[in-house]
């Protein structure tokens, strides 16, 4: 008798554990690692708890009148129940929720005590990122990755040159649309170190599902070092093969679309590649950042990302692709 009861019970436990594990991870609003996400998660848990209580109550009542007290009920008591439970109670609960929700918003929006402003532009199908220069000069352009100092309030200015995208890092904050011709704002205050995942959350064309990025929350000192390094021009090629990679990059006109600061390449159509080797992923986080992945990306761009706005260079000889990949992956 015992084992037959245990089997379904342990199965249920296992299933719950697996389902709950899905709530964790680098891209979960239920595992908050930022001020905004925490407030949203709090709101969610309160609502979940509240709805559980109300649900139990309503079902309990229904069970009571259909099973345990089947006789006639007092008309007056019923009227009070309908008025109280159907009008007064929802009005009070929903108004309370609304007020609580509205009270959360100013804290997520006020630009007071914002430490840094980062501009992110959603483009089909990657992210253009501008950080303020550490030495007070013009902004520095990066792409497809965001890094943040732990505990600092950072304002994101969100833009789009083409269609509506949406900027969403579930672990850190709510999502905000990026609308052509407008600047929208999102404030993020990370509360935990770690690497989180962001994605475009508004359908924006063929490769919408392939438009992601990573967010790294770092100790403030490490962040300063990182930003100072990103502000520097690219390091010159260190090996002969990397040197050939740079020459091939320039001779094939990659510089018409890509900039590598410190070389003649100054194109603005695609992501800045000055420090592409230091990113965690490639092609808006659809490939890992390895030399082989660079070869795949450059040679089969359109197969990895349909309709991508970069022509595939599969016609280049293998050794030239390898040289390009070596050069680019060394740009840390």
């Amino acid at each position, binding site marked *: 008798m015992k084992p037959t009861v245990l089997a379904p019970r342990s199965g249920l436990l296992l299933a719950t554990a697996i389902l709950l594990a899905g709530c964790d991870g680098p891209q979960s609003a239920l595992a908050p690692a930022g001020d905004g996400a925490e407030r949203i998660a709090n709101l969610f848990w309160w609502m979940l708890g509240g709805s559980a209580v109300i649900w139990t109550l309503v079902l309990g009542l229904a069970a009571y009148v259909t099973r345990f007290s089947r006789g006639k009920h007092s008309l007056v008591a019923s009227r009070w129940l309908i008025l109280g439970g159907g009008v007064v109670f929802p009005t009070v609960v929903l108004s309370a929720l609304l007020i609580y929700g509205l009270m959360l918003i100013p804290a997520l929006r006020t630009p007071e005590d914002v430490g840094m402003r980062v501009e992110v532009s959603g483009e089909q199908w990657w992210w253009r990122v501008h950080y303020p220069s550490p030495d007070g000069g013009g902004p520095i352009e990066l792409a497809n990755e965001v890094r943040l100092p732990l505990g600092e309030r950072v304002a994101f200015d969100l833009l789009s*040159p083409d269609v509506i995208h949406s900027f969403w890092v579930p672990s850190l904050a709510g999502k905000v649309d990026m609308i052509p011709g407008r600047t929208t704002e999102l404030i993020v205050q990370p509360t935990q170190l770690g690497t989180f995942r962001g994605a475009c959350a508004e359908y924006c064309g063929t490769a919408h599902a392939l438009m992601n990025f990573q967010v790294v929350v770092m100790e403030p000192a490490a962040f300063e070092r990182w930003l100072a390094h990103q502000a520097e021009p690219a390091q010159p090629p260190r090996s002969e093969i990397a040197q050939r990679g740079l020459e091939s990059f320039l001779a094939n*006109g990659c510089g*018409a679309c890509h900039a590598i600061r410190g070389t003649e390449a100054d194109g603005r*159509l695609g992501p800045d590649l000055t420090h592409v080797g230091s990113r965690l992923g490639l092609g808006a986080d659809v490939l890992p950042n390895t030399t082989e992945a660079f070869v795949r990306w450059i040679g089969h761009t359109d197969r990895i990302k349909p309709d991508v*706005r970069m*022509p595939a260079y599969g016609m280049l000889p293998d050794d030239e692709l390898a040289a390009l990949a070596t050069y680019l992956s060394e740009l840390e």
Partner: protein
Amino acid sequence: MLRQVERLPRRIAGYFRHVLRCLTGGSWWRGIALLGGLLTATVLGALFVAWTGLVSVSAHTEHWAVTRWFLGFAMRNAVETQSIGIEPPRLDDRTLVLKGAGHYETGCAACHGAPGKPRSLIVQHMIPSPPYLPDHLEQWDPSELFWIVHNGLKYTAMPAWPAYERKDEVWAMVAFLQRLPTMTPAEYEALAFGPTPAPGDGGSSALLDTLSDPLGPVLADCARCHGAEGLGRGAGAFPKLAGQSETYLLESLRAYANGARKSGVMQPIAAGLDDEVLQRLARHYAQLPADATVPATDEADEAVEYDEAELAQALRLAEHGAAERGVPSCTDCHGPKSGPINPAYPAIAGQYAEYLALQLELFKSGHRGGTDYANVMHSAAQRLTPEQIDQLARYYASQPWEAIERVTEPRD
């Protein structure tokens, strides 16, 4: 008597009705069965006659007059109906006429003759035989001519345009056909073959040198359109080849030959030559001295005006592209820039503006094709506006055809 004649049709109809009723007993079903039977018998009979081998397929005898009338009737109506809605572009353009004339000599004159060149006796024994065109064009308007030249005519030897997507080339042919009826032999000669080089000038001696070479006749043919010095024919009908990158020339000729680059004019020419000849042709044109001057505009057209302010704006566009529209910089791939360029990328400075604009439109519409690198240029041209195409074409045409530094490593 008169009344009898008046009644005749009615009597014949009555007679037929009578016969039909006898055969079918007045039943619909029997009527249908009878019709089916007759049809089957006809088809089987025709198959039988064909099987016996007695059908006349000889081109020695003409069609019967009624057959000829019927075929002409069907063709004329088909062309009329199916050319409805075709809008001709401006056709009184010398560049179009020149291109059409060049190809007429390659692809049509052998069948249809030309001013001063009667049709060959052999062609006259085809059924239907291709008409001597100069006398035969009045009956067609430009849209109909376009349809015929684009589609060809089934059951005759009239071929369709080899590169069906290149409608611009078909219109060039139509522009030429518009002029053909009144053209003198000398005019035709000048259009289709170009000026005969005066003895003693550099180009002709270069040509004469090559005539002793087995490549000579081939080069003489190229010279009809591309000029003896590889500088084209003054108008933008034919691109300059002199001084162009050898790799690009060779890969383009191969692309024409294998159909990867679409052109009803160049594909038949390149497809008829073997690879070794293509290699020698590419080397020959790459070594010819590039033209240091801005292209001479055709005498017939007004000189092209290049406005300074407009040029400065075009230069900015060429150097920086239009990032907000997704147009990349052109100079990174076509110069002028410091540092070497992939030899598979063509030089375009000093090329004819009309030719450049046409190629850009073809890239934009996805109809150009090209070498293994063509997708790179298709992507670059995809979001150009017509104004930008015009601006860029005129900008590059106004620049001297300068030697571009090339990556020297041997490829492929």
